[in-house]
């Protein structure tokens, strides 16, 4: 049986950030992920916002992690080379009643430690975002809000972790723990057993099932809450801000925001679903997000939509542990008393992405508190160099890049201007992108207005060529999702 020090279950943004944080120390860390790529769950389908931290109830772990995590993003983005823009965000009130609610939100933000929040008048707000509804009555401005590429953060963190010695196994599903009395000494997976001293539960939507196998928190349950989104054609409309409606009981509401890719997105709604894999989009859901978005920006129309998607929030039911604070969906980040050798995470819904660096730091702290001697590894390298994105480069840089490697001169995705060079670089990256969707998430190809109908045959061909497999073996997202079924002419005429 292969032996490591720590096994992390789950390669989402939280698992990968923990892997990177632990890679600093002289430990053998193994990250296992059930899917064929990292970051395919909540990490790949969310609002891509780095929240300022005024939204969580004061005193919750969510509030603490949010504000602490938010402050870590600048250095994180510098070290890991992914897109992050700290452009601030607005909570926009429509009508008098909503205006009154901004005060409470500001107070909550200040209590949480969010810096620099202040009120913006309706007139000033319309200058800042001319597309806003005439019924807007004012807004709350939080300068520390931001937008990011959550998927590339995850890839970058995992690459940096692997660079610093972490082992990553995709397509590896946790099945059970191996116990020595009340101590966890390993895990069983579909790809064999692994011995270890610690397990970190970062299983996202499946965190409840994992902790139950350890006999921890039998009452804890993850209920997936689906959020649907629509992506708008940047040639049709560009909203240059992050605009939240005034939050309600149901959550943060339908927002309208720009992304680091320059598209405007609208969403999400919020709907409980039974199935932890149900990322389907519904007609009702679309109607809901459009009416929500039009409340802030009346000129938005679904005609601008070039793509729709849905993500699932890993919503838990853990009560906040701070005395006197009523909140029943707090983060769980703990070393539970029932067993030894488990760092248990659960209910990491929004603001989980923002909090991820702080969560990773807390996991390190918890291990140290539990007596784990964490010695900093010699030669630990915090830097991960980004690979070039042709479309983002200034013209002179594009010319240089093509001269150095002519494959960067051939455009494969016409809408998003993704080149052959970028695709091949991802196929052979430290964490190789072996499916169409894996390349899509890394390069943003196929996300434009033609939704991949131009690039798809070309990308299938490139993957097949680079991996030396037949085109029929190339898939959208792993086994069972192959694009092609057979060659033409190879069939029997039925008798």
């Amino acid at each position, binding site marked *: 049986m292969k032996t490591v020090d720590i096994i992390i279950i789950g390669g989402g943004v939280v698992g990968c950030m923990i892997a990177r944080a632990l890679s600093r120390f002289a430990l053998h860390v193994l990250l296992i992920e059930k899917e064929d790529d990292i970051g395919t769950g909540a990490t790949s389908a969310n609002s891509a916002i780095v929240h300022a931290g005024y939204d969580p109830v004061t005193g919750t772990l969510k509030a603490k992690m949010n504000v602490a995590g938010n402050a870590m993003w600048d250095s994180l983005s510098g070290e890991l080379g992914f897109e992050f823009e700290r452009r601030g965000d607005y909570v926009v009130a429509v009508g008098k009643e909503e205006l009154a609610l901004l005060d409470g939100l500001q107070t909550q933000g200040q209590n949480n430690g969010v810096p620099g929040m202040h009120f913006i008048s309706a007139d000033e707000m319309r200058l800042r975002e001319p597309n806003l509804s005439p019924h807007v009555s004012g807004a709350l401005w939080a300068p520390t809000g931001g937008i990011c590429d959550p998927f590339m953060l995850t890839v970058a963190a995992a690459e940096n972790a692997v660079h610093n010695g972490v082992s990553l196994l995709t397509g590896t599903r946790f099945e059970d723990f191996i116990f020595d009395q009340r101590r966890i000494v390993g895990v069983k997976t579909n790809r064999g057993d692994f011995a270890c001293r610690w397990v970190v539960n970062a299983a996202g939507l499946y965190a409840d099932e994992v902790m139950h196998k350890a006999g921890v928190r039998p009452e804890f349950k993850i209920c997936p809450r689906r959020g649907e989104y*629509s*992506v708008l054609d940047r*040639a049709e409309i560009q909203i240059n801000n992050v605009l939240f409606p005034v939050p309600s009981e149901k959550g943060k509401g339908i927002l309208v925001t720009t992304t680091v890719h320059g598209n405007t997105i609208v969403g999400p709604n919020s709907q409980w679903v039974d199935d932890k*894999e149900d*990322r*389907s*989009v*519904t*007609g009702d*859901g*679309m109607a809901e997000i459009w009416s929500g978005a039009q409340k802030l920006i009346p000129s938005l129309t*679904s005609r601008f*939509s*070039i*793509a*729709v*998607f849905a993500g699932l929030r890993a919503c838990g039911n853990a009560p906040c542990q701070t005395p006197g604070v009523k909140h029943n969906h707090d983060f769980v980040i703990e070393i539970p008393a029932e067993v030894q050798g488990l760092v248990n995470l659960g209910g990491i819904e929004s603001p989980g992405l923002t909090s991820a660096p702080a969560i990773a730091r807390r996991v390190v702290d918890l291990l140290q508190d539990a007596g784990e001697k964490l010695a900093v590894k010699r030669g630990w390298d915090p830097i991960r160099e980004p690979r070039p994105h042709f479309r983002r480069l200034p*013209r002179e840089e*594009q*010319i240089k890049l*093509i*001269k150095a490697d*002519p*494959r960067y*001169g*051939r*455009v494969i995705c*016409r*809408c998003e*201007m993704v*080149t*052959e060079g970028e695709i091949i670089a991802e196929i052979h990256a430290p964490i190789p992108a072996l499916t169409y969707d894996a390349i899509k998430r890394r390069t943003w190809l196929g996300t434009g*207005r*033609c*939704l991949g*109908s*131009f690039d*798809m*045959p070309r990308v299938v*061909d490139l993957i097949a060529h680079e991996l030396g497999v037949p*085109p*029929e073996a190339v*898939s*959208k*997202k*792993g*086994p*069972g*999702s*192959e*694009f*092609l*079924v*057979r*060659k*033409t*002419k190879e*069939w*029997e*005429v039925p008798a």
Partner: protein
Amino acid sequence: MTRKDKYDVVVIGAGPGGLAAAIAAKQNGAEDVLLIERDQELGGILQQCIHNGFGLEIFGQDLPGPSYAQRFIDDTLACGVEPLLDTMVLDITSQRRIFATGRHSGFVDIRARAIVLAMGCRERTRAQIRIPGTRPAGVYTAGTAQRWVNVEGYMPGSRFVVLGSGDIGMIMARRLTLEGAKVERVVEVMPFLTGLTRNYVQCLMDYDIPLHLSHTVKRVIGNQRVEAVETVRVDEKWAPIPGSEEIIPCDTLLLSVGLIPENELSKKAGVLIDGLTGGPFVDDTFETNVPGIFAAGNVVHVYDLVDWVSEAGRQAGISAAKFATRIRRRETGLVPLRVGDNVRYVVPHQVNRESLAEAPVRLQLRVKTPIESPVWVEVRNRDHLVLRKGELYARPGEIITVEIPIKAYDQVQLADELTLAVVKR
């Protein structure tokens, strides 16, 4: 051949419109003509259209797509047009500077005296028609499937449902059947066929593929690969009729739900786009609002027959050559064309008053709703009838062509606008 940094005419896109434009520009006085194509060969989408039905108008022959294209490719190369293959145009400016890139051509930065935009069109996608459900492999546009089958030689599925009765969808239904796949049905949200009648007869009826009008796909089912689609009947307002849902097991959903002129580049150069056609506003010489930038073919509006695309390309090529060699006509102003009864759009959008001094002016229009009985196509200058042409029927899927004759020169000189209508006879 060394590439120059300045050309008389640069044509963007080497499909039927671009090929015809490049040849015509070269033959009408443009000395240096560059034809930029993103694919690795000339011909554009015709190269994957291996079915016949091309060339009846221009050659009086029924040709497959690649044969039709080859005639123009031969002429293009013979007359000295310079092709630049495997090269994508990134940007064009209103001053007619062009930036492009290619694996073999490197970074391209050139100036043109005149530009012909011939980028064609792209297919409408699942998101644009908003089909809910999961996002598995197996949802493809008909054109993508066509490339896989006809160019790459691979089958993208075994059991198909086709959404949309557009021409490519019907042609692919036949093609896939011939390759041993089962096409369960074609569903169309409109109460009428949106493609050509001849394709319905030759591609669906002849192969016993059912067509369900006033139906749409309500939902895609399957996580990794399509496992089924749910279809539903719709009312006149496209609202699903409860109780009419049907689950059709299949592994592929093909979309043939319309084409959109591809004008992202045009917009960068400041070319104004008509919301109705999705293409630039053009006059009868196919000049856009930006002087020296012309547009022709499916980039202007989606045609039903390739012959008309080539013809428009030829016109645009001639106009571009004249502009580049500074042959200008007498400026006598433009007459706008207006849409009247049952006309969805008409191209061109305006006519030069002086054009009729040289030749008849061709107008092409699509109707809003079908009329299955003889109709008049009328062009009026206020109450005066300029032209009336009879047609046996009028269908949205088929373009109607009329020509303003030279003898109408005086009437057009005096007109401040012309209105088109299609009415029952």
